[in-house]
């Protein structure tokens, strides 16, 4: 099983989610996060004083999929999230040892 973490532009969230549910993905976790990469921050001005704001708002999606589905999911996410501009974000992929569904005790692919 693979865990796929995506950090990307907040307004791309719905498009990515639709693509993934189309592929049969049944769940994911989303959080609002802040950070910076090559995009860096922006400037805010309050009563004439400028402030450099380094951390820009992003969304982070986390989902776990069967090994066989991972490549297809990553491709779909990249296609949906890409604008070609700095700030599109990143996808992190890692291996998951075990998944347990708390309600039933099922494990492995059946628990995803």
């Amino acid at each position, binding site marked *: 099983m693979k865990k796929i973490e995506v950090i990307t532009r907040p307004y791309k969230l719905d498009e990515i989610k639709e693509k993934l549910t189309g592929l049969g993905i049944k769940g994911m976790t989303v959080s609002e996060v802040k950070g910076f990469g090559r995009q860096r921050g922006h400037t*805010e*001005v*309050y*009563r*004439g*004083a*400028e*402030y*450099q*704001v380094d951390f820009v708002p992003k969304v982070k999606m986390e989902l776990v999929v069967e090994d066989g589905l991972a490549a297809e999911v990553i491709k779909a996410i990249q296609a949906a999230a890409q604008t070609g501009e700095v700030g599109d974000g990143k996808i992190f992929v890692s291996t998951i040892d075990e998944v347990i569904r708390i309600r039933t005790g099922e494990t492995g692919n059946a628990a995803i």
Partner: protein
Amino acid sequence: MNAADTAFVLISAALVMLMTPGLALFYGGMVRTKNILGTLMHSNILLGTVSVLWAIVGYSLAFGGDIGGVIGNLDFMFLNGVGTAAKEGVDNIPHLAFMIFQCMFAVITPALITGAFAERIKFSGFLLFTTLWLIVVYCPMAHWVWGGGWMAKMGALDFAGGAVVHMSSGASALAAVLYLGRRHGYGKQSFIPHNLPLTILGAGILWFGWFGFNAGSALAANGLAASAFVTTHLAAAAAAFSWIIVEWWHRGKPTTLGMASGAVAGLVAITPAAGYVEPMPAILMGLIAGGLCYGGVLIKSVFKYDDSLDVVGIHGLGGTFGALATGLFATKAVNELGADGLFYGNPEQLWIQFVSVVATWVFCFVMTLILFKIVDVMVGIRVSQDDEIKGLDVSQHSEVGYQL
């Protein structure tokens, strides 16, 4: 005794009361999340403490019989003799109506100062300071200008509190921040407003309440009240507009905080003049006040004093400009009890206004410095660095504003 006047003054008193919670929101939105409750408390608790103090002794010191042009006597202590009958000299409304209208001014004036020392003052020290300040700064100022004291005798014009309310709070704010020092992290961290919608709402409530403040200062439901109402509105409108134009030119974007700040700057500037000037000069005063106070808030970054929410730049500078502009634009055509200003053939009025400005700044600045020293020695005036980093909400009040 006049029923319409009484109704108008009581409603105006209620409008001015609403300005204090409005001010709390105006300031509250500009601090960081961890200080929202402390900041709301600084304004709102004064409704509690100052009102009681006012009834016990403050009103008498401000409006009791004149002692040497400096202070009122203690005849009205505990509101003794302040009842449903009219006050001497204000024969159209009950004495109680006049007293409670003035009470609301006494409440909001120290609340204005709280923007300067926001995010770092100790609550016990704050309570002691505002109590002492009311007695030794506000009551004399109110007496000098409105209670028959020396500024009134000199002929200084201050319709609704340019000197008594705005310059006094601005000058005291400057003394307070110089004594207290800068917030921890000043220059390294960004002190960004945490909730500007609160600030915009607060500015709207202030603007609304200011009709009671200025028009109500006519103390009658008459033409003068209507005139003050109109000049107040036009000055606020013009200043909201001119502030965003200036910042658009200076920083490239018009901001909502600028719109709200400009409106307040215009309201401050028109306060001493509201019942003495015509509508077109009021617009001009507003246009100038918006640009001037924008410059005023930039001064602090040059001199590196930490006037957190710009009390000096807006109330100090705006009040000073308003007092001097009253000496330019005042005309007896609006208010026969007033005087003509420079542009109406009476240059001496500008000099009188200038003297009142200097006296107000020096008196309030020096007294506040002394009071801060006294309070600091007695109970401490600034929170510890630990408490400051934790925030006033948790360290001073054991609660937090937002449970997320």
